């Protein structure tokens, strides 16, 4: 029997899923990673492993995914176009599939200028849309980007993409999302949402085009831990839109971290009410330990069981 994505099964069964993000270590010691996996595994349905996020060298995303899977946590491998040409992406994904990884999130990636090797050559041979299409074709009809067939069993990944629902122009964002879905994206994780009105508007446009019927849309949330972080997210993180009211609320709080968690829980409750939102993606950058509390307080615990055998390492 072929291994199938547990995340795809849960979404297909109509569960409101919870995913989170895990950053691999900046070295080879995976103790922290396995601790995170132990902490998170009963609270989330899958965990994305970032791929040298913000262009900083870290343990490879594929290797980290294998460690998570060994701990019983379903991994989503992130793959950026920044570092690999079409040959390397396909090769790495064959490797990932052979190691039991079934979910892949295709990203353009942050520019190398922001990372710890600003002089590196960014590759960007393909962009995220082209990568989604290539990965879909690897699975069906089972051919490489060049058109040659994959030998033997084709790697059928559950292919994901991202979209930024709060960036202007909104209409262009939705059209681009549609293109990603037509290219083969079956789940979509959004950039973090702090402005619910904007997000509702975005989802209205998404529903008008029926996109939520072709891909599962998971809304991104990031708990704010401090006033400094709130201001940083507002002022310095490319692509994130944080309204001033949100920052003001954190600033006024006696315990900013507690307020940030409360706000995140409220956001999840609101997001659950929006038609077409199939789950939440919690990006607790460097604060993974808070995820269980958020999931519990949002009423999303316990997670549904995924009893079907995954038969990963055939």
């Amino acid at each position, binding site marked *: 029997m072929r291994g199938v994505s547990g995340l795809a099964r849960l979404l297909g069964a109509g569960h409101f899923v919870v995913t989170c993000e895990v950053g691999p270590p900046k070295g080879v010691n995976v103790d922290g990673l396995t601790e995170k996996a132990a902490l998170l595994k009963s609270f989330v349905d899958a965990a994305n492993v970032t791929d040298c996020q913000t262009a900083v060298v870290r343990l490879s995303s594929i290797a980290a995914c294998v460690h998570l899977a060994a701990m019983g946590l379903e991994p989503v491998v992130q793959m950026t176009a920044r570092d690999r040409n079409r040959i390397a992406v396909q090769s790495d994904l064959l490797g990932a599939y052979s190691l039991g990884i079934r979910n892949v999130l295709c990203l353009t990636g942050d520019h190398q200028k922001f990372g710890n090797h600003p002089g590196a050559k960014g590759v960007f041979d393909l962009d995220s*849309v082209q990568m989604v299409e290539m990965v879909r074709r690897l699975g069906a009809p089972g051919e490489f980007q060049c058109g040659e067939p994959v030998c033997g069993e084709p790697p059928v990944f559950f292919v994901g993409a991202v979209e930024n629902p709060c960036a202007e122009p909104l209409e262009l964002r939705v059209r681009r999302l549609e*293109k990603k879905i037509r290219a083969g994206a079956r789940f979509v994780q959004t950039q973090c949402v702090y402005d619910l009105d904007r997000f509702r508007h975005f989802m209205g446009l998404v529903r008008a085009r029926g996109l939520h019927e072709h891909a599962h849309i998971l809304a991104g949330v990031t708990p704010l831990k401090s006033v400094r972080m709130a201001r940083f997210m507002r002022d310095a993180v*490319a692509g994130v839109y944080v309204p001033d009211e949100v920052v003001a609320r954190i600033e006024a709080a006696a315990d900013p971290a507690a307020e940030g968690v409360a706000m995140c829980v409220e956001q999840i409750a609101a997001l659950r009410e929006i038609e077409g939102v199939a789950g939440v993606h919690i990006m607790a950058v460097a604060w993974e330990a808070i995820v269980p509390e958020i999931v519990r307080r949002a009423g999303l615990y316990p997670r549904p069981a995924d009893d079907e055998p995954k038969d990963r390492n055939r």
Partner: protein
Amino acid sequence: MIVVEAKSFAQVAAMTSDCRRLLVAACAGCTAVCGVGGERQAEELADALRLHARLRGKVLETEVRGVTRQCEPEFVAEFAPAMGRAEAVLTLGCGVGAQFLAERYPNVPVLPGVNTRFAGGLTAPGVWEERCRLCGDCVLHLTGGICPRTRCAKGIMNGPCGGAAGGFCEVGGGSPCAWLLIWERLERLGRAGVLDEIGPPPDWSDAQAGPRRSGKGGGAE
């Protein structure tokens, strides 16, 4: 045109420090337009290098010669008499000119006096901006006449990426997001539907297979 920038005087002085008879080769083409490589700049640079040498107790003789374009053999041939007298040539032509000199005069060291930057055009007085990466597979018909390979920091074909903010590229430098420009222009033309098609991956097979060649009138089949 080809946009060049002068190397720093210190770099040029270091490059030429063990030379006693230097030819400074100007070019009246693009590099002269950039205000870097014309005969006047060549004279000024030669004066400065001689002075620099004198202050260090050395003697440097310089000769300045200019041609219309260093990137054409018949003009490069005009340097022959001066080359015969020189120990080395400091060229203010672009990288193509410098290589043509090296090819034609195998016994004379060629020193680059400029950094060859990009193919660009004037966007403000005295400011040139890169507009073409010479990819050899032009897609301007799909992108509203705005080149994403050059003007998008990631060179992507299906933008904008998630990082554009306030109309500007996430990478900074004050550049507008190329994909927002493309979108606006296609909207104005009533052709935004083009963006619903998946923009193709680039074909680098020609651009990264050694030096490209082209005949008069081009070679596209």
